[in-house]
């Protein structure tokens, strides 16, 4: 885990850096659309890392995570669009979005701290729905969110005169809008990854781990479980808020239908599939599940046409079917995920052995 951040592996880092810089140009050769997909993948990496703090580190199952994403997206939409006539700059909105999402995280966290795993799951799910329903309905009597119609004409990310939409020339290179967003996202993602890694190996990170493994024991050794759990919710939520803000800016349009329960489940699937609590694993999970539908779409239809001469199974339902099956199978055969952390898989191995208890 530490190896790839170890100064000794400078070569590795350099290689990764070169790959990250070259990626949008390589992919962009096949069309900007692919860069856009790449951007969504990074956005999901973002979200998955945020949820990973709650689910992976602290072991609290959160089924309403998308609510924080929604809070961030709506914060951006309201503060930088003609809806209220406000056009705040990036450096103001993103922190506001993060803080607001963080506030919602605490709001959700505080009444639910006493709850055990499965009660928590259902309450967080309810919370996610509550947030969505409010966003869908707060267009009357006072029009705040514009209801189901959503908010249009949202400002893109802009630093001074430099806008992230449209094509521009930088250092002699022609960069399309999605490519510029790519670099912004990668920069933010690296920041988030560094924060995550630092967190995991800090006192807090170990406290989370202790709570995940045995809450009573954690309490006994003097960990303030309440505060530490709240912190997990708050941290996770703020990442969601930032991701939401970027999403709103990238799309230029938000409406409540982007924040349904299935999105929460999707992000959870990324964390679980990749490897709960293991940062590289979570990244892998997010990237995999973003590209899978694209791949399926191009594979499923032609394959079925070739085999049966007609489309028997809709790619969309097949995609969901594969998601569901993947969740079941991974839990069955690789409960620590596709790319688990070495210690975690060992722990789980022990768990199974003493499972009869």
């Amino acid at each position, binding site marked *: 885990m530490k190896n790839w951040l170890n100064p000794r592996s400078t070569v590795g880092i350099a290689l990764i850096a070169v790959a990250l810089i070259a990626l949008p140009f390589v992919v962009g050769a096949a069309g900007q*659309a692919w860069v856009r997909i790449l951007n969504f993948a990074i956005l999901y990496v973002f979200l998955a890392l945020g949820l990973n703090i709650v689910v992976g580190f602290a072991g609290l199952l959160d089924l309403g995570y998308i609510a924080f994403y929604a809070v961030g997206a709506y914060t951006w939409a309201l503060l930088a669009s003609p809806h209220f006539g406000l056009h705040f700059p990036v450096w103001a909105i993103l922190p506001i979005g993060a803080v607001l999402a963080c506030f919602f995280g605490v709001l959700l966290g505080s009444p639910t701290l006493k709850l055990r795993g499965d009660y928590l799951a259902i309450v967080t799910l309810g919370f996610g729905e509550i947030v969505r329903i409010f966003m869908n309905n707060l267009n009357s009597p006072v029009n705040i969110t514009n209801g189901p119609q959503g908010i249009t004409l949202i400002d893109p990310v802009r630093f001074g005169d430099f806008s992230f939409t449209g094509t521009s020339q930088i250092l002699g290179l022609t960069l399309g809008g999605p490519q510029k967003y790519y670099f912004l996202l990668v920069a933010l993602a690296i920041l988030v990854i560094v924060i995550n890694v630092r967190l995991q190996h800090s006192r807090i990170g170990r406290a989370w781990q202790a709570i995940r493994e045995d809450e009573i024991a954690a309490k006994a050794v003097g960990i303030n479980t309440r505060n530490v759990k709240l912190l997990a919710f708050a941290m996770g939520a703020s990442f969601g808020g930032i991701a939401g803000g970027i999403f709103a800016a990238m799309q230029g349009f938000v409406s409540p239908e982007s924040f349904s329960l299935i999105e929460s489940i999707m992000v959870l699937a990324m964390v679980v599939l990749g490897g709960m609590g293991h940062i590289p694993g979570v990244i892998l999970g997010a990237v995999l599940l973003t590209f899978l539908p694209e791949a399926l779409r191009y594979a499923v239809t032609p394959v079925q046409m070739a085999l049966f001469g007609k489309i028997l199974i809709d790619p969309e339902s097949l995609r969901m079917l594969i998601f569901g099956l993947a969740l079941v199978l991974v839990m069955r055969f690789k409960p620590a995920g596709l790319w688990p952390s070495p210690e975690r898989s060992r722990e789980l191995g022990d768990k199974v052995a003493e499972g009869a208890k």
Partner: protein
Amino acid sequence: MQAKLSVVALSVAAAFALSACGEKEAPAPVAAPAAPAEKPVVVVKLGHVAPMTGPQAHLGKDNESGAVLAVEELNAQGLEIGGAKVKFELVSEDDQADPKQGTIVAQKLVDAKVNGVVGHLNSGTTIPASKLYADAGLPQVSPSATNPKYTQQGFATAFRVMANDVQQGKVLGEFAVKQGVKTVAIIDDRTAYGQGLADEFRKAAEAAGLKVVANEYTNDKATDFKAILTKIKSTKAELVFYGGMDAQGGPLVKQMKDLGIKAKFLGGDGVCTPEFMKLGGPAADGQFCSLPGMPLEQLAKGPEFKSKFTTKFGYEIQLYAPNAYDAVMVLADSMKRADSVEPAKYLPKLRETNLEGVTGKIEFDEFGDLKGGAISVYQYQGGALNYVETLGGAPVAAPAAPAAAPAEEKK
């Protein structure tokens, strides 16, 4: 110019590029020694976007079929634009009715340098995608997105060939007045479509002096409406308006009957379907709904289109296929008038469209909305939809834009 068009030899087989899944069109012209004397052929790529997978796939397929029919007819005509023979090609993309996917496929079409876009089907994907098309200067004609916001964003490239929710809600309000009712209850399903329609209906009904005695809400997955219907019953409303889809509308009229509510039922195009009758059963009888445009039977080119469509595809028109057909025709028509297939050149002409389409006369107002879009009202009788009358459409006056939602949206 060179970049926009890919010039290929005549000898290239006229295969239909429906499955052009973003693979890049080889821009290099195939050296064409075979037919030197022939006129060059210009391939005009039209993007088509609709959900081809997911719950609305049947509607997406329907739109696509309409567009396919139009493209085939255009190719059969052997049009010449700008001194070259043109061959239209449909580049079909799937947005899964998902806003995120909507921008991805929009980007694909921009990358593929299509000459125009027909789509998307849903307002939820049409709006975010319209920004990309506007940035790229690509004309976009949606056959079925009815959210008024789509054309109010100030994009010069956004058009639609269907009456929007404002127009439809207004007409339904007028119709309610004509029915002689005094009090109405309004239910909407809190989707962009249902809420938009119900809001416009409310405005029109109140403007016409009707009293709105109840505003109730449900959602697009609900099956039980008894609680809100009981409340409506207590208000003794004479008419219940529903902004939403057939899957809820059908059970809703049934439960109205169970509760002994005698009020009439009126809904928009979402409940003007055979599905509504199937789900509503006998309770659907005598209820009213509306569809944008005129019934195909009443239009000059309607019956012909209907028979062409069923002969070619072997199934009935679902909903918006005629509009998708017209959307393609509108694009082709303005290219003809501009004598260019280049978006920048034919876009001004698109605004001046004056075409007799399958769905009626097509003219755009300054927003890109259909001028005075007509709406027809139907009544369910004995398991069939019977045409009642057509409202609106006659006055060509552009609908007052601020009528749609808060005015601060306007720039």
